[in-house]
């Protein structure tokens, strides 16, 4: 599974948000996209996820496994997205939130078992019956990542996923996220403005995104 973007530009009526951008993300890798506020990084993510507002015009191609995503509805793209807010469904408890993400092929009681097993795996078994408001921010972030991964996405988008967590939680959750992505072998695209977020050995695309991605932070600093 490979996520690739070719000559992608976004423009509103009068101007382009950025120069045509090209990149390819291999399964299990994380490409970090960096840029100042307002440069359009999140708009780019929304274009890839399929939520682009009609005021923008998209040119270029987005493909996943060689399949063009442009005409697809967001729910058919199989691209999971993780926001800075955890966005757990407030009407469902923790295990139900996880089960919500499971594909339909898992039926009946197997859904609950799978959800509980996932909780067990990340060491949060005791949270199963709690409501989202009853657990900590760090726990919510983990649950919401696992919920996305349970839906078996073919690619993952991370929209400043760590920016709302405090320092101590951040590095711990960061490692957790990258570990899970490696295990699931999905390509991941992350936008951030914090250098600390770049995973070791991951590629980085810095503003302006015209040149090709560079290796790791070591090369840049």
């Amino acid at each position, binding site marked *: 599974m490979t996520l690739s973007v070719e000559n992608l530009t976004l423009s509103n009526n009068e101007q382009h948000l950025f120069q045509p951008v090209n990149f390819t993300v291999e399964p299990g890798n994380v490409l970090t996209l960096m840029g100042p*506020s307002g440069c359009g990084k*999140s*708009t780019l*993510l*929304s274009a890839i*996820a*399929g*939520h*682009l*507002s*009609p*005021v*923008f015009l998209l040119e270029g191609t987005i493909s996943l496994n060689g*399949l*063009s995503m442009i*005409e*697809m*509805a*967001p*729910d*058919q*793209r*199989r*691209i*999971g*997205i993780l*926001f*800075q*807010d955890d*966005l757990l*469904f*407030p*009407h*469902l408890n923790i295990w*139900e939130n996880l*089960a*919500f*993400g*499971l*594909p*339909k*092929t*898992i*039926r009946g009681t197997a*859904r609950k078992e799978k959800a509980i097993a996932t909780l067990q795996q990340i060491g949060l078994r005791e949270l199963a019956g709690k409501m989202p408001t009853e657990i900590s921010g760090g726990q919510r972030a983990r649950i919401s990542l696992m*919920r*996305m991964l349970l*839906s078996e*996405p073919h690619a993952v988008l991370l*929209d*400043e996923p760590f*920016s*709302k967590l405090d320092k101590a939680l951040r590095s711990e959750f960061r490692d957790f996220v990258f570990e899970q992505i490696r295990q699931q072998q999905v390509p991941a695209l992350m936008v951030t403005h914090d250098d600390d977020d770049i995973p070791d050995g991951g590629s980085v695309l810095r503003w302006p995104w015209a040149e090709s991605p560079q290796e790791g932070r070591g090369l840049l600093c």
Partner: protein
Amino acid sequence: MIRLLYLFTLALCALPFVPGILGIIIPAFSWLPSLGLTTPNLSAFAAVAQWPGLTQSIWLTLFTGLGSTGVAILFCFLILKQYWNSPRWQHVEHSLSPMLAMPHVAFAIGFTFTFSPAGWFYRLLESIGFDTNGLFSLIKDQYGIGLLLALAIKETPFLLLMSISVLQQIKVNSLQAVASGLGYNHNESWLKVILPQWLPGMRLPIFAVAAYGLSVVDVSLILGPTRPPTFSILVWQWFNEPELTLLPRAAVGAIVLLAIALLSLGIIRVAEWYLLQYCRQWQINGPSRVRSNDSTNMSLLRPKRHFPSYAPFVLIPVLVIPVLVLWSFAQRWRFPDLLPSRYSLRFWQQESLSLFELAANSISLALASSLCSLILAVACLEYRQQYQRGIPNWLIALPMVLPQLSLLFGIQITTFFIPGQWYWFWVAWSHLFFVFPYLYLALDGPWRNYDIRLDQSARSLGLNGWQTWWRVKRPLLLPAIWLGFAVGISVSLAQYLPTQMLGAGRISTLTTEAVALSSGQDRRVSAIYGLLQGVLPFIFFTMAIAANRYSARFTRRTQQQRRESPDDIICGKPHFK
């Protein structure tokens, strides 16, 4: 001072419940010494139980009341699903106020003129060569289907309006974006993510709609079934029985109506619990993902294929008004003709004197009750801000969710014991009782959103309490006050039962006359009253909107806007503070 007003409001809003309840329980046991009934017994209960057609009429009530609520909820949900956050939502939202301003009675009269067998809709069918002879009539049909539909259509805009604040508290866009990332399409995410959060937030409005539908008298009189009628009409008939010793029977009826309403609200609550809390499996059984490699896809075609589900709620009221206008000017209008063959001003001239008098009655009652309610509501909200203690929400909700007929019945019985003929005063008070909750709720949001630090800085600049209110808070909240005032006036103008019951028939307003004339022979006179009854609140709403614009002109504050594009949820960065 403010504390005094607060206590006064509590008294004014809570006191009627005591006589309201006592006033139906005591006479129900046939104890009315002033009428010579001095030995309590159960004969009235027996009289009600033996009434022919009682079960049928109770079933009709449940069918029309709960049915219209269900249909309205369904319509509302479908419209929200289709339009919320779409560019066309603005149009929907703008069309809500005129729809809400139209009183039930005017709508019902217009609905009758449009959908009765000789109505305009049938004329239209005839003119396109469709034989309407023997076609099912929606007006006064024995199953109450016309009543059900009219109520559902009239209540949908109300539920839509109430949904706005509920949905604003749910992060609809972001939750939907997450759900679609998990493979849920638009419809599924509305059903499984938004509905379970929207419905509990809509509990009070739904209760209000259900209670109204179950106990409505004026609309059922105009287009409800007659043999047997819905139960509320039956009680109304018993109540109007000239033979006073039969009053206990009406009191029992009022109790039964109250029981039906409370039971139905319980049923609705249990249904909600069952669907959302008990049966949770459907909410988490996964997305029905269509084959993901299917590139021909619905998202691009979808906007074209959608049926404009909001159309009936604009079309029917828009159709109803011109029909009323036509009838009011018609002199000769034979059945299959689409338009009258001769027009005349005669009926307007003939009615003009009494129209002025009735309109003056309506307006003076509306202004008096709304002004008092406004002062009381503002006082209560200020009291809440100062002492962190407001009127309990259930007390505000009670007049909205209890059947008017039952409550007023008790209050009226009580007024018998008070000497003197204070009809105008009683009517104004009963209007106030029903106006106050709506006005209070309309002002509640703006008062909560008001930044109290503005007051604090004004005080520290040397203004006293009154000056701060008058020079800082009032100008900022004036737009909300105008609209709240218009809501109050329109509620008061629409009151039928309170005017009729507490005025003992001596106080007539446009509404009571419109209802009385709707069963009369002359459609043209009925159309005039229906039209005016519908137009009056509309005038006040327009005035309020104009005043609102005028007041808002001084404040350059840009109103907080809802995020419009779905893209914003992803662009919307946290503002690190």
